[in-house]
């Protein structure tokens, strides 16, 4: 987007913001200033909620609880002990954050609606405490007598001083949000939302990312609650009520789940809207409800999406990197296998998915893993990459015990994979997806950040579409992008789950050529596929699984000639029974 387009798109925003500032400073009544002050407080709360609800994609119903905790910490300390804002404000932020940290352990493990219910339960529990612990909280009456904000001799009195102070803090909150949401982290959040299955494959620790979002949402919620109490001069159970949560959720949905603009629009609109319609008496709720419904229908991504700029903000690669310049040398002694698996077994209920499987891969080797449906191929891939755990057996790669490591640690160690169905974040461009994997590669020795990502894109011949969103790519290109993503982590072992499935012959040939190039630079590759036309010319070795057992492992032609493989894989009658592994 060129600067003139940018200016053209942004001028209504700049003009609107300027008009709002002039109105607030010179024309607003005390009442108008109060509503704007409340808007500023809600901006802070919504900015926090965007972390967990927008970026992390988790429907938390605890934002009202964090708001309430911040409110009560300030309310109790200020009204009962006369503690000043300089102390109560950070304590409110810390109190809400501590609560989030305590509940994060059990709650963040839960998925979707269970997470929503658990966070709702937290809010209800706190509300009950606030109502019934009368000696401390003042019960349902709450605690009156909260003084105005004062710092030293200066006091943020009602009206313009309080308005400016609150919006000053809102700007600070915006800067913190912007700092926390640098592009690499936004991309990691996108991966977590769009492709939860593949998050570890990107080297992203989903638990840590979710925890960060939850803590930030709590901290912002606590800060907003503290300011709210000073604005209303009383703390009462309404601050913990579900109404606050609904208000926050509505602001976020109407304004936008991502970005400062969404938070500002949502907070300003939802704070003012009921006031504009208040004159309708009992019917104002109907009017507000109809208007909100219309907004959600016509702007499902939030009103801020009307001001969104299309295309990626990344600078296109001016000089594409040359393919194949990265050496995927495993950090193991020469001659030692990159992958060593022995006696691997895994049972799912009554099904023995893997039964005493031994497998080894050396550097630069391409091993094809074949077998009929249900033979245990994907289970083995999942165990190698830590997504599933073996019941018995040992499995190591370049010094790491894969049986004990997390999927993220395994990916960061240099064991990469692709999936049967490509797992790519639709909302990211090819470059952003690959760079995200490179940025989160952690301790992998081969990674040089963006340079490695650029090389991976070039190796997979994707430079021309590097700035295209993954969600718009055809299937064949998605397969290649997945390989590029896997390479961005600088792996020494690559596990490919049916990389040729659904591809045209020429696309299969392109992938095969990429894999040969990679093996030539030292990468160990395990390819799971049914397609022998693809595998036969590619693999230097074949291994065959049947009903969880490894029935053959050896040179390609020997395995294909094996009677047991013929019987299991091609359905031919086996002349003699075979037990154990042969080649």
């Amino acid at each position, binding site marked *: 987007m060129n600067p003139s387009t940018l200016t053209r798109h942004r001028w209504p925003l700049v003009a609107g913001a300027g008009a709002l500032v002039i109105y607030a400073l010179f024309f607003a*009544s005390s*009442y*108008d200033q109060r509503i704007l002050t409340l808007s500023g407080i809600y901006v802070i709360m919504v900015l926090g909620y965007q972390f967990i609800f927008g970026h992390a994609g988790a429907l938390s119903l605890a934002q009202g609880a964090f708001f309430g905790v911040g409110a009560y910490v300030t309310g109790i300390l200020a009204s009962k002990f006369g503690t000043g804002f300089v102390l109560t404000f950070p304590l409110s932020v810390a109190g809400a954050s501590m609560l989030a940290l305590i509940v994060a352990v059990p709650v963040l493990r839960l998925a979707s609606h269970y997470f929503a219910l658990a966070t709702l339960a937290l809010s209800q529990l706190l509300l009950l405490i606030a109502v019934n612990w009368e000696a401390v909280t003042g019960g349902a*009456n709450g605690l*009156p*007598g909260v003084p105005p904000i004062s710092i030293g001799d200066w006091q943020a009195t009602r009206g313009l001083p309080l308005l400016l102070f609150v919006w000053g803090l809102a700007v600070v909150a915006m800067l913190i949000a912007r700092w926390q949401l640098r592009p690499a982290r936004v991309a990691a959040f996108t991966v977590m939302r769009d492709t939860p299955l593949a998050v570890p494959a990107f080297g992203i620790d989903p638990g840590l990312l979710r925890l960060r979002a939850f803590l930030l949402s709590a901290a912002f919620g606590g800060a907003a609650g503290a300011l709210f109490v000073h604005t*209303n001069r009383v703390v009462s159970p309404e601050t913990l009520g579900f109404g606050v949560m609904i208000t926050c959720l509505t602001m976020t949905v109407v304004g936008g789940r991502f970005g400062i603009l969404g938070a500002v629009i949502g907070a300003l609109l939802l704070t003012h809207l009921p006031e504009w319609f208040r004159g309708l*008496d*009992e019917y104002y709720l109907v009017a507000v409800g109809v208007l909100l419904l219309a907004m959600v229908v016509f702007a499902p991504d939030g009103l801020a999406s009307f001001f969104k700029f299309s295309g990626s903000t990344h600078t296109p690669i001016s000089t594409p990197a040359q393919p194949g310049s990265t050496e995927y040398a495993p950090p193991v002694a020469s001659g030692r296998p990159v992958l060593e698996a022995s006696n691997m077994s895994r049972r799912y209920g009554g099904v023995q998915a893997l039964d005493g499987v031994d497998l080894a891969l050396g550097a630069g080797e391409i091993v094809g893993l074949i077998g009929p449906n249900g033979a245990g191929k994907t289970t083995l891939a999942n165990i190698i990459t830590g997504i599933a755990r073996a019941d018995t057996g040992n499995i190591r790669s370049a010094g790491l015990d894969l049986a004990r490591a997390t999927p993220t640690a395994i990916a960061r160690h240099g064991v990469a994979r692709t999936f049967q169905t490509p797992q790519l974040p639709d909302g990211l461009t090819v470059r952003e997806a690959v760079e995200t994997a490179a940025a989160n590669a952690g301790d992998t020795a081969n990674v040089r950040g963006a340079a490695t990502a650029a090389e991976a894109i070039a190796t997979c011949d994707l430079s021309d579409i590097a700035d295209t969103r993954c969600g718009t790519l055809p299937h064949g290109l998605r397969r290649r992008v997945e390989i590029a993503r896997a390479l961005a982590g600088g792996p020494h072992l690559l596990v490919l789950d049916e990389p040729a499935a659904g591809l045209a012959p020429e696309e299969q040939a392109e992938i095969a050529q990429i894999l040969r190039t990679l093996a030539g630079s030292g990468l160990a590759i395990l390819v799971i596929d049914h397609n022998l036309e693809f595998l036969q010319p590619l693999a230097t070795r074949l291994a065959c699984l049947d009903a969880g057992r490894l029935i053959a492992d050896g040179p390609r032609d020997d395995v294909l000639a094996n009677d047991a493989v013929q019987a299991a894989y091609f359905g031919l009658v086996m002349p003699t029974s075979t037990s154990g592994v042969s080649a």
Partner: protein
Amino acid sequence: MSALPRVFIVATALLATLTAAAAEPLRIPVLVPITGFLALEGTSQRNGAELALRGSGVDFDVNDTATSPEIAVNAFERALTSGRARDDVIAVVAPMLGTQMLALIPLADEFNVPMVTVSGTARITELGSANVFRFFPGDVVVKAAHARYAVEELGVKRPAVIFQTTAYGQSGRAELDRNLTALGRPAVFAEGLDVSVKDMLPVLSKVRESGADALLLHLHSGPTALVVRQARAMGLDIPIIAGSAMHQPETAALLAPSELAGVCAESGASPISESDPATRAFADAYRTAFDREPDAFALGQYDGVQMLLAAVRAGAKSAADIRAYLASRRYRGLAMTYASDGKGNMAHSAVILCYSGDSRVPVIVKRYENLTGIL
């Protein structure tokens, strides 16, 4: 232009402005909860105020405060600082919800505007504000009548108490406890209910197990009706002496007359039960204006606003004049005689009313006059 004409023009303009300002009618904003869980009571409060203000020459505008302090403060600031000059505002009809009053008191003190309310929450007159005037007997009054009627008139020995876990409920429960203990009949069972609870069987089973010989309620309208109905349905036939919510015609309308047999309630008044001509005229006017039955909240707010208008008729022109009038004068209203106890508690009498079982119109069975000794 010489200096004289300029001075004349400026003086004329100034005079015109002042005349225009003086011509602005006095104003009493009505800030009441007409949405949310207190909509029923809040609407009565609004209607009472509106009936008094119609045709009085004093301007008024109704603002909904819903049920949160935030919206109440918004409404207050809008009424006083948005649009017309705030000097016109001589008083505010303030919401009956205790938490909202607690949030409004600092503002009323800052703006120096008296607030007239029918809130029963004890705390609002304990904060030292000179701007709170309560025209409904507070918990100190009605809970004394509540407990005394149960113990002294009905001979209750083992009372059970069910209260609401709202500001209203907790405030009343504390006074009820204090009075029952003082009468030597402490509650054998007490439990708080959230306003959202619909199944009363668990709490009523506990009441039965406690061996209570009377059930004292301090609940909002809907929960009161639910408790009465479910108590009768499960055969819990001990006397029920409810809080003021039970006196409301809307609460009685939720129950069959037979379910109301043996049910009594405390209240500041019961306009539909009174036979004196003035109160009957009020009730008729109320029915005509709003197509519903009046209750004690409507009557209390009506009396409160009538006292404000009496102050205006007596020459009050500012909020300060009104405050001085309310704080120092005695006023004979329809429900009772009002006078401040120095803290803004204007109502000091209560009534007990009971349902016969064949009508939804209760009969006043006991009047407790001047319980605080102020009058």
